[in-house]
């Protein structure tokens, strides 16, 4: 591994915090701001630092708990860094981790809280119909109103070109639900799912069936990020951010939320084909070294595409890869979404998957992968590789 990875300034995750997770509208009487604060307070407690030490905030997806209100609510005396990863979707999730890491590594801040808070019962639903901001304007006139509609044609083409079968795709939802059954925080803990139910579930936006889509939830979670030097002075476990970053192929600007003009190779690649190479090189590892991965499972087909883009199998081979049991906690080569993921734990737009990644490396997951040392977090536009100290 390179010098930057071993430097004292290298960014680490030292705290995690979560509120309860419920179905959309399940949290009443608490604001989104209150949930964001609760998650940050819990993360600071977990890290063993006082709130006053937090001097940086980072979020994404236009989180409405804006830093000046967070600073007031939490009494942060010296907020020196506040960053927001662009984008209306959760694609910027791990970009917010990268921005927090950059802030502590550069000295712009000492302790950055990364957070995401959602109370969708109280305001606009993330996954429902709306006009996409900053879109070139070719979606609404043709009925393309919601994220599943915009992304379904990418999955359709992928499914068609590589002969992906529904029994294979089902593995993403079935694996998530089975892992959720062991996770007391999971919203769908007590709701087992079998293949027959999956195959008989209603179509939402062909090829997405109901169980190919994530949930909509209320809840918040947070991470505390600081330098390796400070992390070692704390009592808790130190989880290193070996690499983190954002970016997709240039065509994503005309991808699912644009005009669907991206090159075919990228159209069916899930967004990770360049970023994966960059992050593996930075971390100095290969896909074979990864012990567990948490994939952004907003829609099942994108997990298949990114299993390929992140090098766990060849292009078009993910259907077979998952059907062979490779992603399962029991006996799988690469257990994924071990908390139940967005489909069965909760959809906190990627950040709860990061919390689960930290848990895996601390050895405290409810679906613990034996001796997990490296965890990949990946979605369509950002990713991170975490490692045990």
């Amino acid at each position, binding site marked *: 591994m390179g010098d930057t990875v071993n430097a004292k300034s290298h960014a680490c995750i030292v705290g995690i915090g979560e509120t309860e997770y419920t179905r959309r509208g399940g949290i009443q009487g608490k604001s989104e701001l209150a949930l964001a604060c609760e998650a940050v307070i819990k993360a600071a407690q977990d890290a063993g630092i006082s709130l006053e030490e937090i001097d940086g905030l980072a979020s994404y997806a236009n989180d409405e708990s804006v830093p000046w209100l967070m600073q007031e609510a939490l009494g942060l005396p010296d907020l020196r860094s506040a960053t927001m990863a662009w984008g209306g979707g959760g694609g910027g999730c791990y970009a917010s981790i990268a921005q927090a890491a950059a802030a502590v590594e550069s000295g712009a801040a000492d302790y950055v809280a990364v957070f995401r808070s959602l109370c969708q019962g109280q305001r606009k639903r993330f996954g429902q119909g709306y006009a996409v901001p900053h879109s070139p304007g070719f979606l609404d006139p*043709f009925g393309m109103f919601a994220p599943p509609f915009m992304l379904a044609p990418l999955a359709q083409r992928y499914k068609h070109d590589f002969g992906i079968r529904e029994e294979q795709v089902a593995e993403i939802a079935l694996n998530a639900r089975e892992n959720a059954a062991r996770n007391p925080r999971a919203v769908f803990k007590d709701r087992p799912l079998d293949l027959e139910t999956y195959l008989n579930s*209603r*179509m939402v936006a062909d090829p997405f069936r109901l169980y190919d889509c994530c949930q909509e939830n209320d809840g918040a979670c947070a991470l505390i990020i600081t330098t390796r030097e400070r992390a070692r002075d704390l009592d808790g476990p130190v989880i290193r951010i070996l690499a983190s970053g954002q970016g997709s192929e240039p065509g994503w600007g005309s991808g699912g939320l644009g005009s669907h*003009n991206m090159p075919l190779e990228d159209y069916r690649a899930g967004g990770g084909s360049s970023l994966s190479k960059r992050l593996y090189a930075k971390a100095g590892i290969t896909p074979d070294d990864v012990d567990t991965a948490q994939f952004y499972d907003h829609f099942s087909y994108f997990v298949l595409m990114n299993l390929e883009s992140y090098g766990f199998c060849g292009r078009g081979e993910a259907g077979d890869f998952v059907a062979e049991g490779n992603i399962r906690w029991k006996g799988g080569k690469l257990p994924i979404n071990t908390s139940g993921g967005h489909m069965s734990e909760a959809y906190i737009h990627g950040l709860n998957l990061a919390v689960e990644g930290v848990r895996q490396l601390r050895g405290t997951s409810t679906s613990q992968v034996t001796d997990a040392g490296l965890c990949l977090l990946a979605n369509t536009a950002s990713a991170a590789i975490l490692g045990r100290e």
Partner: protein
Amino acid sequence: MSRYLPTPPPNPPMEAVPFWDWCRKRELRFQQCSNCGRCRHHPAPYCRFCTSDQCQWVPAPEEAELFSYTVIHNAVSEALKAYVPYNIAVVAFPSLGVRLISNVIDLEPSELRIGMPLRLTWQECDDGTPLPLFLGKNG
């Protein structure tokens, strides 16, 4: 034929205004770089291949093909309930190297096939703007 979908009229950013101006004349045209000759869609202020800001609008052929699609079963509003299931098509114009989001208005969901030929047609939306839509029968 009755309207395929009750959808809002186009609300284009500045770069896409000429696209819809041509549509009002029932002409489907795409933006072409005057310098290198490559077409682009969605409309953009510069050519991403050569950075020229000079462009013209060239007519698309009537024939196209289905690049991908989805069939929507979830109505996101009351107004759409009577219209599901409806399809959203990604329509390719291989000779121009561009694709357009649209609808195939004469086929059942089970009749859609990636790669099938399509033919351009027009249907007016609420404000009278003709939308470029497609036919799949005898395409």
